[in-house]
């Protein structure tokens, strides 16, 4: 199921202009006993070197599944990728052999996880785990690798790194653990770093520190950063652009400033309206009505139409494409103009 070259704009075909990582029309399905779960339905996004893309969406919107597909850590079966490409520097990762993908993992594209405690092996010291990256992939000796591990722990600002390198994951606080996870993931200087809700398990003050650290590491090494989150507050400061996902589709993508100022999709608008605001103290907090869609049985037409205040008749029959608003913005809503103008129907 290759895309024909006519689907690609000429700029994308020339390898020179190929973005660092491009996800193109990716579909992921899970074949379960209850039926086919369509977790990702045609997601496309790109990340360039030194660029931060925030993928925003609620639970079950397919943001993590997309990331796992990029990493190639989906369990297949039950997962199936019936369609789509994931191009890293022009090569389609999905067509690579398992060995070739193992080479990409960790070395070219790395990932950090939400819960750093469970993402670290409980039976080895953190130093052992960080230095393992160097021993396995760089062929360093034990002592050399350990030295590099201490350097890395310093780099992610773990105090007394030299002593703490011999500690086990459970002896660290949540924020420190996430730093160790980050140290492991950047050990081999990956070109793309995927952070899957890196701050969700942390408290607010620590969240900011971790985000700051990620942003700083990214500035230093010019990696492409994909930040997966459901927290609008987390992304505002660090992201360059945002892709909002709903029911396995990207419903809006835009530079971060535009999204916050003028959302062009009713879902994004709903999300922004649901943020508590001090100036509206005492009023009821806005909430998007209804429930997230059942991925086993997606609504016909636009997946968001049952919850949408801008709904018209054709929303129930025709799924909107990602309309281009400007060169860098898109919205998958038939009525994005009305949303932009802020005229809520009903």
């Amino acid at each position, binding site marked *: 199921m290759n895309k024909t070259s006519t689907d690609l704009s000429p700029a994308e075909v020339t390898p020179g202009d190929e973005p660092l990582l491009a996800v193109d029309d990716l579909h992921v399905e899970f074949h379960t006993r209850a039926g086919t779960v369509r977790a990702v339905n045609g997601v496309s996004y790109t990340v360039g070197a030194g660029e931060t893309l925030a993928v925003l969406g609620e639970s079950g919107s397919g943001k993590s599944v997309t990331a796992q597909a990029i990493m190639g850590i989906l369990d297949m079966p039950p997962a199936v990728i019936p369609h789509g490409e994931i191009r890293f520097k022009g090569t389609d990762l999905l067509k690579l052999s398992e060995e070739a993908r193992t080479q990409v993992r960790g070395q070219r594209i790395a990932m950090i*996880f939400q819960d750093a405690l469970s993402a670290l*092996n409980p039976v080895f010291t953190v130093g052992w785990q960080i230095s393992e990256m160097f021993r*396995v992939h760089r062929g360093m000796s034990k002592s050399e690798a350990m030295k590099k591990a201490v350097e890395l722990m310093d780099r992610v600002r773990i*105090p007394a790194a030299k002593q703490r390198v011999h500690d086990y994951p*459970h002896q660290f606080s949540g924020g420190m653990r996430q730093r160790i996870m980050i140290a492991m993931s950047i050990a081999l200087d990956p070109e793309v770093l995927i952070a899957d809700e890196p701050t969700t398990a942390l408290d607010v003050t620590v969240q900011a520190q971790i985000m700051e650290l990620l942003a700083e590491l990214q500035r230093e090494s010019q990696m492409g950063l994909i930040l997966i989150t459901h927290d609008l507050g987390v992304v505002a400061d660090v992201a360059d652009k945002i892709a909002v996902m709903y029911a396995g589709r990207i419903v809006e993508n835009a530079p971060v400033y535009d999204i916050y100022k003028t959302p062009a999709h009713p879902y994004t608008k709903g999300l922004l309206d649901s943020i508590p605001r001090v100036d509206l103290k005492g009023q009821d907090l806005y909430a998007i009505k209804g429930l997230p869609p059942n991925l086993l049985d997606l609504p016909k037409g636009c997946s968001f139409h049952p919850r949408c205040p801008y709904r018209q008749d054709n929303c129930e029959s025709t799924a909107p494409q990602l309309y281009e608003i400007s060169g860098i913005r898109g919205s998958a809503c038939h009525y994005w103009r009305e949303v932009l103008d802020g005229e809520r129907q009903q």
Partner: protein
Amino acid sequence: MSNPTPPVGPGLPETQTLVPDTVTEPAKQRAGKQAKAARSASLWTDAWYDLRRRPMFIISMIIILILLIMSFWPSLFTSVDPYNARTCDLSTARQGPSPGHLFGRDNLGCDVYARTIYGARNSIVIGVFTTLITTLVGGLLGIVAGFRSGVVDTVSSRLTEIFFAIPPILGALLIAATFRGRANSIMLVIIALAVLGWPMTFRIMRAAVITAKNQDFVIAARALGAGAGRIMFRHLLPNSLAPVIVVATINLGTFIAAEAALSFLGVGVQSPDISWGLMIADARNRFLEASLPLVFPAVFLSITVLAFIMMGDAVRDALDPKLR
């Protein structure tokens, strides 16, 4: 404001970490010292720390140590060599305890004490080797089956079920009787017990691996470029080892008991080799005339089996505090 609240904030560890350069040198040292004190806190060191304080573990460990010494250097305990036929004297058969022969003499006039001491070696050898083989074979297959799943898992799991369907003593009896005389009797007992014993270890290892496999750190290891072998032996194995070790320790005792049973039934260790089971079998016919030749090996056997099972229990408690 009658009760001023103490200031909060500066004590937060996370706040400190933001500005590591401002952390004073003594504070750094203190942190280092704390880290050192709490340093050896892996599952195994924790378990060891816990074990050293358990009377049950200490008692069983002492018994096992004595048994080990007994099987390596039996001459430390007795000057009589029971493998030398000249130490037996038929005219003193079934004599009661006497100064040189504390446990009396058996049907053939041999010293029961010396034979009991020398019997430890075969029990320990058979117990240890059977456990090693079952743990290695069952453990390795268990990791692969649990990790690979699919066909490999299905085939090996069904295979273990076939072995589970065989009554253990009957199965071992069958194997030992069939190959009797073709191999060293001790080796035969080890093989017979190992063939029937590995599925247990397999199942436990497989279950532990399947649990560990779905944990985040395995997925994270994959995401950071670890290959299948590395994931199996660096990430899955150490995290699945605890239950296997517990079962292995308990099984060791069970295998020793099984060896005695096989020897008692006449298909295990063969004379002139010495085994507690064999001694019990020999003494059984004249039990009413002379009970000591049966009682002593039986007591040693019970104590040995008990010691290993006790140690297994203690190890389990130490490795899985939730079960306490």
